[in-house]
């Protein structure tokens, strides 16, 4: 199922329609790698706290491109392609570690932690025989270096010189909400990955879709954690692909919109035997119990009560996505707070009370549209534009994603 991107025309309605070929087409996927991931975007790499010491490194991806992220011996963060200059083998095979130099296992070429080629085995041959010509310049094929930016302890990288500063890219209003959560030194609690059976954009839309949260995730609604009548809002920032949505739980008006509409989301009488899990602490002092934030093309920051995590959305082929979850608390957490965060982590991840459905729902779309590449989804909740909104019965941030996506893709 593929056609030249040039022959793909976006529906005339614009960002209120998303053509299904965008989740299916191999050529579109290839163009995304070039124009989005290797283009003028900031790609999330992880938390700075993962690399506390000089010599620390981790391997991850920018789109499909494997990269090494390191803290060099002077303490600066670096990111470079995980590809040997010689034959293109992976330089770093481990997920993480600490080292002074990196050696390609194939032919023992060595690199420093900035990604510079520092040694070619037998470059001058052995006893005057073999070796490279005097004028050989293998450095010309050295791994590409990415620009690294950190913002509030979050690491991002870009291959493009044209990408604006990270704060400008995220937008001031959304950046302020990152500062809100990343307010002090963080402590890693752990992580895991979720393999999603869907195109990366279906998951990224899902995170931005404030409309679905209380309709698909019954756990929320039953305990009135995110009833749409609660006070909250959506802010869209940057080029449209950044967003933050938030809810203030204690402002629940106990309305009956769900009951009157007879929706599946509400069933009476369901109570927890161990409700301590939901006894959250207002650690930000603003009453916001839930904040979900995204930055195009693959960053999610989550505060669900006291459960804090970042998620990295990695494309794995047209119909696959790896969702890398990293949970954190603060260095200042006492034992009780640490325990509360671990308990509330039951809400998220592949077994999360309020996130379990997302893995399946995006797959249902991928499967549902298999015979409908020429058709389109309807994204008109909350109007047709991209603007911040006090209501969360809106798809404004989903439209924002498509606005930025189309600009980068030239679609």
């Amino acid at each position, binding site marked *: 199922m593929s056609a030249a991107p040039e022959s793909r025309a976006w529906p005339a309605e614009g960002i209120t329609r998303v053509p299904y070929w965008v989740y299916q087409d191999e050529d579109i996927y290839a163009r995304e790698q070039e124009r989005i991931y290797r283009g003028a975007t900031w790609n999330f790499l992880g938390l700075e706290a993962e690399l506390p010491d000089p010599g620390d490194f981790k391997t991850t991806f920018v789109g499909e491109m494997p990269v090494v992220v390191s803290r060099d011996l002077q303490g600066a963060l670096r990111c470079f392609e995980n590809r040997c200059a010689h034959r293109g083998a992976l330089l770093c095979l481990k997920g993480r570690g600490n080292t002074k130099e990196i050696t390609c296992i194939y032919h023992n070429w060595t690199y420093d932690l900035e990604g510079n080629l520092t040694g070619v085995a037998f470059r001058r041959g052995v006893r005057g025989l073999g070796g490279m010509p005097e004028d050989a310049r293998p450095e010309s094929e050295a791994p590409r270096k990415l620009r690294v930016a950190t913002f509030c302890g979050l690491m991002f990288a870009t291959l493009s010189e044209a990408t604006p500063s990270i704060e400008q890219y995220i937008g001031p209003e959304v950046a302020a909400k990152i500062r809100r959560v990343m307010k002090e030194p963080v402590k890693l609690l*752990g992580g895991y990955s979720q393999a999603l059976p869907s195109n990366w954009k279906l998951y990224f839309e899902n995170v931005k879709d404030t409309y679905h949260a209380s309709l698909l995730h*019954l756990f929320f609604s*039953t305990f009135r954690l995110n009833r749409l009548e609660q006070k909250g809002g959506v802010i869209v920032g940057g080029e449209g692909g950044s967003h933050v949505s938030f809810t203030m739980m204690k402002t629940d008006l106990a309305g009956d919109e769900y009951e009157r509409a007879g929706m599946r989301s509400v069933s009476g009488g369901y109570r*927890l035997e161990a409700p301590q899990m939901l006894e959250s602490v207002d650690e930000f002092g603003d009453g916001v119990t839930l904040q979900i934030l995204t930055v195009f093309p693959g960053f999610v920051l989550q505060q669900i009560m006291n459960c804090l995590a970042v998620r990295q959305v990695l494309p794995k082929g047209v119909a696959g996505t790896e969702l890398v979850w990293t949970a954190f608390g603060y260095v200042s957490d006492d034992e009780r707070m640490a325990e509360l965060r671990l*308990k509330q982590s*039951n809400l998220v991840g592949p077994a999360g009370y309020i996130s379990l459905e997302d893995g399946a729902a995006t797959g249902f779309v991928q499967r549902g549209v298999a015979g409908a590449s020429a058709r389109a989804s309807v994204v008109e909740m909350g109007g047709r534009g991209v603007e911040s909104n006090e209501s969360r019965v809106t798809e404004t941030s989903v439209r924002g994603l498509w606005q930025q996506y189309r600009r980068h893709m030239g679609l």
Partner: protein
Amino acid sequence: MDVELQLTVENLLSRYVHAIDDDRLQDWPGFFTEKGRYRITTAENYERGLPLSIIYADSRAMLHDRVSALRHANIYEAQRYRHIVSSTLVERIDAHSARATSNFQVVRIMHTGESMLFASGRYLDRIRMNGDGGEPQFEERVVILDSRSVDTLLAIPL
């Protein structure tokens, strides 16, 4: 080797997986003591000493909540598991408790007919030999997944 202890523990492990695979989730919390702990984590987190779990419960009540949510709140496609448990090593701690380590594999069978190796790993158990009604029960069951990645979602417990 304490043959009776070995057989008693293996019988508990077998009854546990049959209850899950037969979709008798309502029986699942009863395999734990009232303050029983259950968690699923990855080998990576475990080896790095990081405390995050995929599922975390520190009481039987929390396990009841997990079952209620699966039955009444969470939405997922119909699926079943088939657990294979083997290589159980048992070690007595004292007169009333024992430690056990086992390997497991879980095949997930979707309603569409797709079967896949969904999970492999270890069970690290601490068992009270004379729990409710004199039956052995888990004081703690730590499920350590070999892989850091879970396919799609993990609804039914392991």
